[in-house]
């Protein structure tokens, strides 16, 4: 069977790799070898170190808007004087406007999505107006906002000194730094007054204008980072480089670790702390990382890196075959949430090892312990005890059903059907875990879904389908050799993550079990450059990834992109990457903490 056909006349979409059971071949340009295909990181050496060059310099970047999550958290922090319940009600009442805000792309981290379109601009304005309207027309809400003037303050208090205090406070939260008299008087000016009289904040209209203007202000939505010390170049001229001032640094820290702006405590603390000095900054970073919000912030990185939310819905087809395949497991039955359990397990693994002293990258990839907190997931894993969510994990998998780290967990091998998808699994490891970059399938590729049969395992079907043709034996494998083997290694876990030695095949007509075939997980994996590494299963593959250090390098690259909001430069960022790699060798927490002390974080070169 060869369904890898080439028809130049048929131009197909480039989404081939993402489709289940889609076989891809190349025509014309292929992936070639690892280096020529650009698969090997150019700024790293063969021993797993990044190359720190003397010529390294700060790369320029452009002002960026807030990602959606950062904006939402900024709005909540702006209104943080309100009690939690009222704040929830206010946000819920503005839900229609909030939903207008586009979702950021996770393809290259949401922090890297700089797209700005009409929907963004409309939404920002509508959100600001609606929130301001809701707040300003409710005396109870206004009283909470006005509490900056004292606990018994109300809307009628917003005159004189209190109005000034109120304005200072909320403008500061907008500008994220202390504000000048001129800035305050400008934003407090009544637009209908010809004499520059201040807005009447005791009226709901005046308050609506004031609060709405702040929430829609460019300083609310954009982070400029151009108010620090100019260390080279000329102000406002491309290439000018600024050392961030302490307020800019603080804002950058909390957006990195909390996904939101600083709180009032930090603004107050920073008044007497110069965090441009490393030791003082370390104190603030420790405070930020010790806050529960840091877990949420770092979890965002892991989620976007590992793309756990992309786990397909289980059994969405509702086919008889899937019912047979998942018989007795209560998949999609009320009260059971297997898919959520699978995703949460990855979150738990990453969070546990990140915030546990000396938790390391190796633990993520090799941990032998079960993190199943529900009996549904534990049943899939064949373990009888549940992890309590806090203690040091000690529950091991049965010796006959071994697993290592995240690559062997259900969230990495499951999909929505009764059969596994080795290409997809392999592609995910290649792209996300090893930071490989394959060219997209050529446009003249004819793509056909591979048909399952009851005579061959899924692996065998894929091997045949991507074998190429007698006259062009490498046309498929020039790229697929970088993906297929990585997926074959996990074939001893079925598409629900259960360990198996046999693959069940279902009758395509009746959906009933037809036969069971031996699975084969032995494969020649390519983890590093063009080195072929024979592995017997996913545990050995995981070890190879750790030993090669390609996995660690990849995590460093991913976090660089997430934290510094741009793709690393092979020529300019080697020293930063190398520093981060050294810290990753220490511990995960040390690694995350160290990012804030890297040059790309402390400086900004403008374009």
């Amino acid at each position: 069977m060869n369904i890898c056909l080439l028809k130049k006349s048929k131009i197909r979409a480039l989404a081939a790799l993402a489709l289940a059971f889609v076989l891809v071949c190349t025509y014309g340009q292929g992936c070639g070898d690892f280096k020529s295909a650009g698969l090997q990181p150019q700024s790293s050496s063969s021993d797993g170190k990044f190359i720190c060059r003397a010529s390294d310099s700060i790369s320029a970047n452009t002002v960026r808007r807030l990602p959606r999550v950062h904006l939402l958290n900024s709005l909540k922090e702006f209104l943080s004087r309100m009690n939690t319940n009222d704040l929830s009600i206010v946000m819920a009442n503005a839900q229609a406007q909030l939903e207008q805000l586009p979702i950021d792309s996770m393809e290259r981290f949401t922090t890297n999505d700089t797209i700005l379109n009409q929907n963004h601009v409309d939404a920002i304005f509508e959100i600001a107006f609606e929130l301001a309207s809701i707040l300003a027309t409710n005396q109870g809400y206004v009283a909470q906002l006005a509490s900056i003037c004292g606990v018994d303050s109300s809307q009628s208090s917003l005159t004189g000194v209190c109005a000034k205090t109120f304005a200072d406070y909320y403008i500061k939260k907008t500008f994220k730094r202390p504000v000048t008299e001129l800035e305050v008087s400008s934003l407090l000016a009544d637009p209908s007054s010809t004499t520059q009289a201040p807005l009447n904040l005791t009226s709901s209209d005046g308050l609506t204008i004031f609060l709405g203007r702040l929430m829609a202000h460019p300083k609310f939505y954009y982070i400029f980072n151009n108010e620090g010390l100019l260390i080279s170049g000329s102000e406002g001229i491309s290439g000018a480089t600024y050392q961030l001032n302490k307020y800019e640094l603080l804002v950058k820290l909390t957006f990195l670790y909390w996904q939101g702006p600083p709180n009032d405590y930090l603004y107050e603390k920073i008044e007497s702390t110069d965090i441009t000095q490393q030791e003082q900054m370390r104190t603030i970073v420790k405070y930020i990382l010790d806050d529960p919000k840091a877990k949420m912030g770092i979890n965002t990185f892991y989620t976007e890196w590992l793309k756990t939310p992309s786990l397909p819905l289980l059994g969405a087809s509702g086919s008889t075959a899937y019912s047979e395949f998942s018989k007795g497991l209560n998949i999609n039955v009320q009260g059971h949430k297997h898919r959520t359990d699978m995703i949460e397990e990855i979150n738990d693994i990453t969070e546990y090892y990140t915030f546990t002293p000396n938790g390391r990258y190796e633990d993520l990839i090799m941990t032998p312990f079960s993190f199943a907190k529900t009996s549904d997931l534990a049943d899939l894993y064949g373990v009888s005890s549940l992890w309590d969510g806090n203690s040091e994990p000690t529950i091991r998998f049965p010796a006959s059903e071994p697993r290592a780290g995240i690559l062997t967990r259900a969230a990495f091998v499951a999909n929505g059907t009764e059969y596994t998808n080795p290409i997809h699994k392999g592609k995910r490891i290649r792209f996300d875990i090893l930071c490989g970059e394959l060219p997209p399938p050529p446009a003249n590729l004819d793509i056909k879904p591979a048909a399952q049969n009851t005579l061959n395992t899924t692996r065998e079907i894929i091997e045949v389908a991507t074998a190429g043709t007698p006259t062009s034996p490498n046309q498929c494998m020039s790229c697929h050799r970088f993906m297929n083997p990585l997926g074959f290694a996990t074939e001893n876990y079925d598409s629900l993550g259960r360990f198996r030695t046999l693959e069940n095949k279902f009758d395509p007509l009746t959906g009933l079990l037809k036969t069971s075939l031996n699975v084969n997980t032995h494969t020649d994996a390519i983890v590093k450059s063009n080195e072929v590494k024979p592995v017997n299963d996913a545990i050995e593959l995981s070890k190879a990834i750790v030993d090669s250090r390609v996995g660690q390098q990849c995590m460093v690259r991913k976090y660089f992109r997430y934290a510094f909001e741009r793709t690393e430069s092979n020529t300019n960022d080697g020293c930063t990457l190398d520093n981060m790699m050294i810290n990753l060798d220490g511990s995960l927490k040390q690694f995350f903490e160290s990012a804030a002390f890297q040059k790309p974080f402390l400086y900004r070169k403008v374009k």
Partner: protein
Amino acid sequence: MTRRHFLQGAGGAILSLPFLPSLIGNRAMAALLAANQQKSFIGVGAFHGLYRMHGPKSQLMPVLPDDIRSVAGFTPLSLPGKHTVYARPLSQLLQNNQISQIINSSFNPVLSKMLMMQGLDFLSIYGHNGAQFGNQNTSGGVTGLSSTASIDQVMANSLNFYKNPALKGRSLVVGPNKYETGLRPGGYGISSAYQTPSSPLTSAIVSPPLAYNPQAVWDKYFGQAPTTLPLKKTLVDLVLADYKSVRGSRALASEDKRVLDQHIELLQNTQLAVNNQSLQINGGIRPPNKAPSGADWGAGVYDLVACTAADRRILIKTMNSVITSLISSGLCHSFLASSESLTSTDLGAWHAWAHAGYDNDKDLIANVESYNSVITENTIVMQDMCLDLALKLDSISSNGSTLLDSSLITCIQEHSKRGHEAWNIPVITFGSAGGTLKTGQYLDYRNFETTRNDLGWTRFGFPMNQLWANLLQAMDVPPGEFEALGKVADSHPSFTINGRRTGYGVSLFWTADGASVGLVPVSSSHYSTWGGTDLSSWLPFIKA
């Protein structure tokens, strides 16, 4: 309800000026919710009856036998000294997914919020009237009664109804055209108002002004009321200025300026859109002064010789959109509407159609064209006037409750299915008045324990006065307030308890001569045993 459903309205094919719930401001909703659960009342008067409104061939009420006592599924309630009444969930009365030809499947989304009641009697009336909401001195054949205010006016002038004193007195009476004014007999109005609202006990009763032009209504309220739109315009101008100011900073590098330039360009589009919203307030849109066909509808539907039948239906729905805007903006909460010949330029067509179309005594359609015109008229009343408004109110929600939930739309017929017979009236409501009424029910108040059937003279049931009293209480007007408005001379002793003139409105009986009212019930076998009945108490089954 989907947005598509909403925009299409109940009629499906005809698009009226839409009400856009997505545009409704939270400012308005916040103000509304803060107004201490203000309720809204919308009365709709339908005219003439004289068609198969109930019974085994019913085209309006649930299709049931003339006598439902042996029909399974009903909950009976035996009342001492009175007859047994019956209730059943409306959802159990669907046949082919609809209640009836007129109450078709398009009502199903709000069926659980409806009440359908059969068997309410105008005690003092025989013949044509405008008494649907208490303007009971209007029967052309009955003289000598005092004038009473219709219940929409009682509500509008009650501070128990309007929690905000600034709104006291606000009501909107919608009529088909400028001729529909004046109290009956002689006039055509179904709303009767206080000439001196500050003295309701002594005030003369007059006909209120009618509104028939949606644009004029819009301008009256929104042209004067403060709205959020000027604020929004001001804000977008300020925000744009702030972006330009930051863009002008000399610390900004060229690429940063390019990003802000892009934002400013997009924000200018936002500004343009906001300025173009000048006709939009809280999801509503200022109506045009012309019908879709191009005819001027400023004088109401009857004067629209140039208007198509579709134009007239669109006018009704457009008025509904304006009413929805008024309610959602907290500007007015008492409404009354009526319409007669909605599909004809002939003012009296409805009367001729009804009498020519159907002979109840023989259950015979005498003139198909006339009969169908009556059906069309009633379909428009129920689907375009009532359901369309109900759906619009139901599309606006906050904290799980919709404006329909806090409202009460009540459609009362002039007659039953026999010509000029002002009892055994069908009543259909939408909304629970803030949870006061137990909706989703069919309630049958008819007395099946007499020899009457629904051919010829039909059965009596419960006094309409009791329904009015219930509607007033559902709208938070207590008996102590509305009972005092009743005149001693117009109140039957059977319903006067310890000096309380219970119920609302005239409770004397129409007499056998058809021209006067008196103490003897029309049917001595029916109401003669009702002595001591408190007509301000809740009708059976109706209270939540």
